[in-house]
């Protein structure tokens, strides 16, 4: 697929989509959004790039193997359930602390956020593993 318009669009759109996905991830606890949605959006940024410039370039942009992302996300989500055990509560119980931020006031920070980040990373890894493996075949055959 060689569309100049798509390539240029993707080049400028992808960073915006990625930023938006982060926003969705972090505001998810209070407003529509969250790790799953954010992850899907981030993955679609790379998919768009793969669609426009081929999966090789998209993979190079990602730098890491999406399978590692999948594993990292799972690990993060699993690890975030453990602090509860240290403070003597049931496994999976969310642990919160309040971080006083300048200008913004008190900001509650907790293990569910880490869990959500884990989901975010895992969803990116999942989607891109599949997208890349499918598109890689595609480009291979295009070249031939």
């Amino acid at each position, binding site marked *: 697929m060689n569309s100049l318009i798509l390539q240029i669009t993707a080049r400028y759109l992808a960073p915006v989509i990625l930023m938006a996905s982060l926003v969705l991830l972090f505001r998810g*606890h209070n407003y529509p959004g969250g790790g799953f949605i954010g992850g899907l959006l981030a993955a679609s940024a790379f998919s*768009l790039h793969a669609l426009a410039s081929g999966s090789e370039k998209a993979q190079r942009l990602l730098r890491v193997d999406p399978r590692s992302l999948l594993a990292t996300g799972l690990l993060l989500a699993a690890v975030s359930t453990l602090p509860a055990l240290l403070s003597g509560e049931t496994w999976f119980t969310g642990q*919160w602390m309040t971080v006083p931020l300048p200008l913004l006031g008190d900001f509650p920070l907790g293990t*569910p956020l880490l869990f959500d980040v884990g989901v975010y990373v895992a969803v990116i890894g999942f989607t891109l593993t599949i997208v890349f493996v*499918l598109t890689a075949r595609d480009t291979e055959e295009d070249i031939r």
Partner: protein
Amino acid sequence: MLFPASITLLLLAALLTPLAVRVFRTAAGWMLALLPVGLFAAFLTHSGAVANGGAVTWIRPWAPSLDLTLAFRLDGLSLLFALLITGIGALIIVYAGGYVDDARKRGRLLSFLFLFMAAMLGVVLADNLLLLFVFWEMTSIASFLLIGFYNEKEEARRSALQALLVTGLGGLALLAGFILLASIGGTSSISALLAGDHVAGNADLYVPTLLLILLGAFTKSAQVPFHFWLPGAMAAPAPVSAYLHSATMVKAGVYLLARLTPVLGGTVEWHYLLTLAGGATMVVGALLAGPQTDLKRLLAYSTVSALGMLVMLLGIGTELAVKAAMVFLVVHSLYKGALFMVAGAVDKATGMRDVRVLRGLQRLMPMTAVAAMLAALSMTGFPPLLGFIGKELMYEAKMQAPAASDFLLVAGVLANAVNIAVALITGIWPFTGTRAQAPEGSIRSGPALWVGALILGLGGLLLGLFPSLMGNVLIEPAARSVRAEQVDVSLALWHGINPVFLLSVLTVILGVLLFRLRGHMRRFAEWLQVPAVLLPAKLYDRFVDALPATAARLIAYVQTGYLRSYLFVILSAFVLLAVATVFPLREWPAVSATGTLPPAAVVVVLLIGTATVAVIASQTRLVAVTAIGLVGLGIALLYAMYSAPDLAITQILVETLTVVILLFVIRQLPHFKLLSSKKTQLRDAVIALLSGATMTLFALKAADMQLEHAISSFFGENSLVEAYGRNVVNVILVDFRAMDTLGEVTVLAVAAIGVYAMMKMRNGKKEEAR
């Protein structure tokens, strides 16, 4: 705090070991051994409290609804095992650091060893049946990784799988047994079970419970007929054999039996099953050791025999027998660990393990020779080594056994005689005389390779000379845990000339005789190996061979590989199950109750309907995919209208990505053709309509139902108060029902691996075809 910290530290060590190996290089073993040494010392500081009858506990809830707690408890029995695990573990880490030359492999081996150490420590410290089971399975996995350490060798892979399958099967039975036991006792806390006066022996389900738990213990501790995996495990590097398959892991089964003796023991079934299996294992192990000429295999089969002795002693179950079991446990760990380390050092120095050739090694490796002789003398039960005390106690226990003591004694003397011969063949003979032939290869016998064996050998000597060192501090509290009553342990080296001593002398004479006639013994033992002894291993082979073929047949039947047949099955199952559930409810939903649609929604619904028709009528895939995307977007719009923004966003993203992925796939498919007959088309249409109608019915019914306690109100009320989040959907996902989410993400991972593997394999096949 010591228990969770010790296990966590060991797990951390497992993670960081490859890094440590890079930093410390060849000294990595010495440096890393400091951790288990420290833990050994820490456990030792508790010995005073434990000896006085106290127990150290640490409890945190884990999943209370499953009666699963992170409960750890250190009593006499746990302390004995914990000291063996950390003490011998430290020596093994040093040894392993010197044993493996390749730096990367050294890191991997040390890492797996720490993983195993953590798991094993968990098994002996756990005070909850389910928690114990978790660690139990961890030891099986660590053992699998360690046996298959040389994964480039087919034999190693095969042996690793065999050990995993046999112990894994036992593990499953064990879990079932634990659940039964917990339901009998009303708790899964081990200390509560031990303290309670409900003797499981009177319960209706006692026999199945006992059988299932014994299956778990017997597979782990290589009891007949599951003994065959242990010699195969000798494919592992020598440090692994010394640690897992002689000193610690195989004793997990023995630990479990000892631990549960107060709950499960004391019955006729317990007594006979354990004595019989233990006795048979003792004899079979000795029998199989007879014809071996390989250093490691000889030691492996004598380990099988020793494990049999331990189980048999627990089966006899008298105060004396339990005492003997605890002493022999220590004796065996010390000498067998040392001899395996010696075997590895010999293998490394000479490149061979054939006991018919090895000779005169004392000049080559003097320190190893001293260690080997000390260990071998303890194994023969020669005074003043600890082995002597162990054997005396064992004979005494058998003499005073409540039943069949004559039979037990004869079998014991025979097995011990073979063990003495094995000790002489492996520990003494190679280190005497003059060398027959020059060893090949380089000889580098650094201190790392002999220091561990020497310490264990000297330990056997020291504890033999001063048996009171461990009698009151370790053996008595341990025996007390098993017997659940006061036990008097006063170990002494010399009891005077009595029947027991005479039996010992007889055993030694027999053993030396067997050693002198070892050529005959080999032939005789080979002739004695009747099919019955070898049958379990053959049955295992046949089972494993038949498994893939059966699975292939089943898969060929269930998995057709056609998406349409999967859809057919899934949708019709859905329709049937849904109708079967809704139909008995009788009351059909009132459609009018749904109210009128706002005009915007009508437009969207019309759009969805049109797009659906377009999907069916389309003649190209591109149109179909686009139209399907349209359907999805329409549904997303509906979500947004009815204030479910999270669902709407998710739906849009999923639809977009699905269309993108489908577009990639479509380009590789052959041209679109209509191949189905009119009849199949009709059938598919009926299925599609039926499932659509069922779904509609379901949705209406769900809206119609008035539940007394709507769970949504709970989430709504507690979302901000307890979970600090205003977005209830997200709070449910990451907090209230986070465990479900974790499960779902795991499913994603599995699915991704599946797709990846499938596509890669397809590509691979294509490459081959070209």
